[in-house]
């Protein structure tokens, strides 16, 4: 029973992290149809900024330093949009995808060249890894924070998407960007807003990823973006609620396989997870929450 509870908590926090990551991909995809594989590098930049801050401004309170790291991720995300993605916005989807890979390669190699290929330890604050006894189980502050932050981010995001004109524009642009522009709403503003939110989510995710690993390295963004991609596909690419659900489904599935697989084949966990994902997609190609695409439209 205790074991079960403990694993349920693990599943929830892993799911939360994936949801956060998938949401960052989904928001950009929904608005501009771009699968931003450079999202991982936004996390990396946030991570290295936090690393630098913890090294050079160590005595300062983490509550001051972490937001700066998040801001760095936001700045990176906005810069990618302005410099790399805006010029190819109207190009075919493949061009955007290749641009994202390009950005990703450049950033990785920047850190390889300027810092080091090897991981750098980040002295994460102790309070992130404290175990809180909770009846028969104990829970890490990190896990609590992860769940709280994911749900908090989700609630705030939903409030923005439902309550503000910019949010409404983003939801509308997900379906029909041209008509949004016909309302006089600036396309650049809507796209920048999507990258802003995406960067914010990447920055938050960076904190949790670093806290778990205790280090940064130039390739740290790859696995997260891969998980985010899978989670978003499970949920239905482009759907925001889908991204969250996909994140939790992936996280929970991973933990379940971790638990039920015998030690001998535990190393094949991801193979089992992805087989299940594959089966899901065969039955429901549009994902859990996705809508079938309608292809073709009449032009005058």
């Amino acid at each position, binding site marked *: 029973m205790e074991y079960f509870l403990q694993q349920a908590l693990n599943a929830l926090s892993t799911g939360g992290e994936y949801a956060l990551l998938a949401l960052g991909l989904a928001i950009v995809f929904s608005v501009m149809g771009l699968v931003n594989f450079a999202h991982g590098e936004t996390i990396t930049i946030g991570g290295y900024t936090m690393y630098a801050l913890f090294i050079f401004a160590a005595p300062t309170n983490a509550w001051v330093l972490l937001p700066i790291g998040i801001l760095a991720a936001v700045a990176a995300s906005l810069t990618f949009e302005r410099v790399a993605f805006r010029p190819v916005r109207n190009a075919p989807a493949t061009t955007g995808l290749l641009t994202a890979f390009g950005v990703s390669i450049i950033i990785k190699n920047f850190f390889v060249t300027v810092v080091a290929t090897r991981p750098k330890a980040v002295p994460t604050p102790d309070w992130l890894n404290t175990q809180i006894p909770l009846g028969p189980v104990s829970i890490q502050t990190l896990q609590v924070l992860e769940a709280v932050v994911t749900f908090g981010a989700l609630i705030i995001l939903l409030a923005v998407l439902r309550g503000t004109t910019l949010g409404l524009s983003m*939801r*509308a642009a997900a379906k*029909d960007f*041209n008509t949004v522009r*016909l*309302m*006089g*709403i600036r396309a650049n503003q809507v796209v920048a807003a999507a990258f802003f939110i995406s960067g914010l989510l990447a920055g938050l995710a960076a904190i949790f990823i670093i806290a778990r690993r205790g280090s940064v390295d130039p390739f740290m963004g790859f696995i997260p973006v891969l998980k985010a991609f899978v989670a978003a596909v499970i949920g239905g690419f482009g759907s925001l609620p889908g991204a969250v659900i996909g994140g939790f489904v992936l996280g929970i599935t991973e933990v379940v396989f971790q638990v039920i697989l015998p030690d001998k084949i535990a190393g094949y966990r991801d193979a089992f997870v992805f087989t299940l994902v594959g089966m899901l997609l065969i039955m429901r190609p549009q994902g859990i929450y996705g809508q079938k695409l309608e292809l073709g439209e009449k032009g*005058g």
Partner: protein
Amino acid sequence: MLVVDSVSVNYGAIRAVQEVSLRVEEGEIVALLGPNGAGKSTLISAIAGLVPIVSGHVTLGDTEITRQTPEDITRLGVSVTPEGRRVFDDLTVGENLRLGAAIRKDKNGVAKDLEEYLEMFPVLRERYDTAAHTLSGGEQQQLAIARSLMSRPKLLMLDEPSLGLAPQLVQQIFALVGTLRDRGLTLLVVEQNAHQALAFSDRAYVLNTGRLQYSGTAAELRESDQLTEHYLGIGTGPPMRTESANGTP
């Protein structure tokens, strides 16, 4: 108010609009007619800034808008109700209307206009909090028009407002066009349904295969049976259209 001067537009690799010139004066209702594929919607999209203009000029009042973005053209007072209505499916009726007024800063004015259009289109008040995709075609058309009006345009371009609507609804929409003009709006209306359109417009232009074939007052066009048959392809449309055509003097 709007001057289109020998404008050419491509649709994909095809020259869809070939050196078309037209003008719409303040307070007028001008119909843009022609068979399917004549380039009417392409021309509207080009005026709105959604499709690049290959050559020629478009001016709105004293401002050249030929290469402006759709955002800026809307902000200058041109609103489009696009073909196929294009309401924001996942958003509620209220949210659609709110986006229509996105560029306006006068909150009180927006609230006042909203109240007015909900009065004008009672069904929108009824369905205010429901997602737009649950509306019928006619309701969506009303929503699309109301959404366009929320930006308080000087010029409203309606692209095929009657498409796919039942005859009574078509009458209703066209009656609305007259009401809007009486309130000082200028309208450019694209229609395949020529007889209906000529009944309420002041002047008309006829496009065929991307070229301007005819222009004149609506009265002139109505009287010229041969012209309408020849250029507007009346009689080839669905029965609904033929019937209504017969009913029009």
